[in-house]
């Protein structure tokens, strides 16, 4: 009987979640309106500062180990906040792109599909990046921390770093506050 109760409760929870998704889907308003306003601008300079290896080395040299770990954790938390913002922006872009998938113009639908694909990739990457940051939060000196992450950024310093300008021709929208 215990097994039956467990399975009935599991089925009820699953059903409640699925019905919740169905209801929220039917209540969803037109995706084109007001979505761009939900995009959160990201301060590129502040982010660059956080992922700067020179900054990391400087702090490591100047601070005692315990203090360095504390500061490093604070920097990682800030980094996590940026990645979370990028992930949320990706979600908004998925919805914007999906809103355009029903357009009759082939070029628009192709562009929309590409946008959705890239935004999904960003959402996925942001999830994995967050996992790494949370692991690094537990062991700030492990080498998993920002230092390794930052080396990648340093290597790619020539390329634009963040999800940049997202512009609606009617009302320009910026993800990054500095470009």
């Amino acid at each position: 009987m215990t097994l039956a109760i467990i399975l009935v409760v599991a089925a009820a929870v699953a059903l409640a979640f699925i019905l919740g998704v169905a209801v929220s889907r039917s209540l969803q308003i037109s995706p084109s309106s007001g979505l761009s306003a939900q995009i959160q601008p990201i301060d590129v300079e502040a982010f660059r500062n956080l992922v700067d290896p020179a900054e990391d080395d400087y702090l490591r040299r100047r601070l005692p180990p315990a203090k360095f770990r504390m500061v490093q954790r604070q920097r990682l938390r800030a980094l996590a906040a940026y990645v979370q913002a990028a992930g949320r922006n990706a979600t908004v872009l998925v919805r914007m792109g999906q809103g355009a998938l029903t357009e009759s113009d082939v070029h628009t639908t192709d562009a929309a599909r590409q946008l959705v694909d890239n935004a999904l990739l960003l959402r996925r990457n942001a999830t994995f990046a967050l996992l790494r940051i949370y692991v690094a939060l537990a062991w700030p000196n492990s080498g998993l921390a920002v230092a390794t992450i930052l080396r990648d950024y340093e290597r790619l310093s020539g390329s634009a770093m963040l999800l940049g300008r997202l512009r609606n021709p009617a009302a320009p929208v910026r993800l990054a506050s500095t470009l």
Partner: protein
Amino acid sequence: MLQAHSFLWHYLWVAPNVLLLVLSFLMWKRRLYRRLPVFFAFALLSACCHLAIYAADISPWVSGENFWRVDWAGLLIEGPLKFSLIGEVFAQIFGTYTSVVRLGRFLIRAVGILLVLTAAVAAAYAPKDSLIGIISGAHLLDQTIFLIESGLLLFIFLFAAYFSLKPSRPVFGIALGLAISACVHLATWAIAANGGLPASKRVVLDFINMATYHVCVLIWFYYLLVPQKVPAQAAVLLPENNLDVWNRELEKLVQR
């Protein structure tokens, strides 16, 4: 009213399956079977299986044992069909997006393996609910199929919700109907297989299952055949973006 072989009982067993046959005919006429071939096969074969089981139930010359053999055959046909249908739903939602399809496939396989193991454990610990092995076996097989099916569908809903992906209207309708049916059937078959309900009360579970299935068939009708109302709106303008750059950066970050 809630008795076996009452009018309502006959109606709830026959009507959804006749409706499913009508739905498959309409799908054929509208060439929807090209877009959703597995659902088309599911609608056709599932309706035929259920009607065959119904015929075996009401035919006086079919023995009890043979009825359960027919029921087993129906389960063995319907089970793989349902899993193929879940595969079709998954492919329709995520298949066009290369960025998540590989991750999705990996995760759904992992979830599938976990569910198979869970279902096997649940079946192993279930008490024999009938003196006749063929009956308790059928109940356990039902429980196993619905446990795996509802778990996989829940995963698909969760995965799509996490990525804010909105499936197309017909695919959403198919997934919704299938999920409602799977969850309710899981609960009822879990009670049937583990609860040790007396036979007189079992018929209530049959009514719940049949009524739920009827509702699900109506959901499929609605989502597949009734066109979506498109609100008049200005053309959606896509924003400029440099997602490629951001994705390259994050991928490098993750792969370290």
